[in-house]
């Protein structure tokens, strides 16, 4: 969302964080117990307290299948593997992990992985996104 200010973006991310939590701002020290909890990998989702989630039928959308195929092709070509994808999803942190739809997590970490490994640069990618967005906006007029 290019139009949002820093404050608006910050509020947006804060509202998206689903967990109630103590506000921590890089405390000087933490307990061993808190550190063990902070190391808990996000995909390890058994046994937390939660409310019953409604079961909703949802079809797969084209962008989701495109994401899936892109990620699989990156695997076949040796760019990464599924376990690495899962690890990178954990590394997104709780706000993004729980805030993004399932396949949006995939495409986000695929992008980060390609940048990490030097296959693309963030400015190349940003420029391409802007180019397509501009084309898209023109097309709507």
């Amino acid at each position, binding site marked *: 969302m290019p139009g949002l200010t820093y404050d608006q973006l910050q509020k947006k991310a804060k509202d998206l964080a689903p967990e109630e939590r103590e506000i921590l701002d890089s405390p000087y020290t933490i307990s061993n117990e808190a550190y063990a909890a902070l190391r808990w990998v996000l995909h*390890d989702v058994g046994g937390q307290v939660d409310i019953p989630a409604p079961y909703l039928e949802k079809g797969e959308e084209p962008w989701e299948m495109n994401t899936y195929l892109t990620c699989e092709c990156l695997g076949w070509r040796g760019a990464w593997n599924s376990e690495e994808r899962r690890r990178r999803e954990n590394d997104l942190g709780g706000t993004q992990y729980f805030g993004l739809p399932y396949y949006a997590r995939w495409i986000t970490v695929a992008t980060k992985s390609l940048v990490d490994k030097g296959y693309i640069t963030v400015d190349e990618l940003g420029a391409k996104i802007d180019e397509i967005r501009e084309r898209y906006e023109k097309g709507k007029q």
Partner: protein
Amino acid sequence: MAKPKFDVGDEVRVRNQTSLFHTRTQKYTRGHVGVVSEHRPEWVIPEDEAFGRVEDGRKEPFYVVRFKQTELWPDYTGFERDTLESEFSERWLEPARKEK
């Protein structure tokens, strides 16, 4: 290929070892006892594969372990015979009872 340390039918306990980063060993299984129900092929352990170490990662036998739900969740309210299966690399398992 290494000979699997545990046989199908063996009682095993999931180790409660400290893990720093990525692992596939669920917290809710740690310290609990289950029965080996299947051997899986030897493969790179998730802790290495997750960091792209497929070629030089440490390989181990994998096991499917079957737990009683009542073992995992003390307040489980379902049927007594309900089970849950999960997969572990060999490093995460130890004999359920210490050998004499």
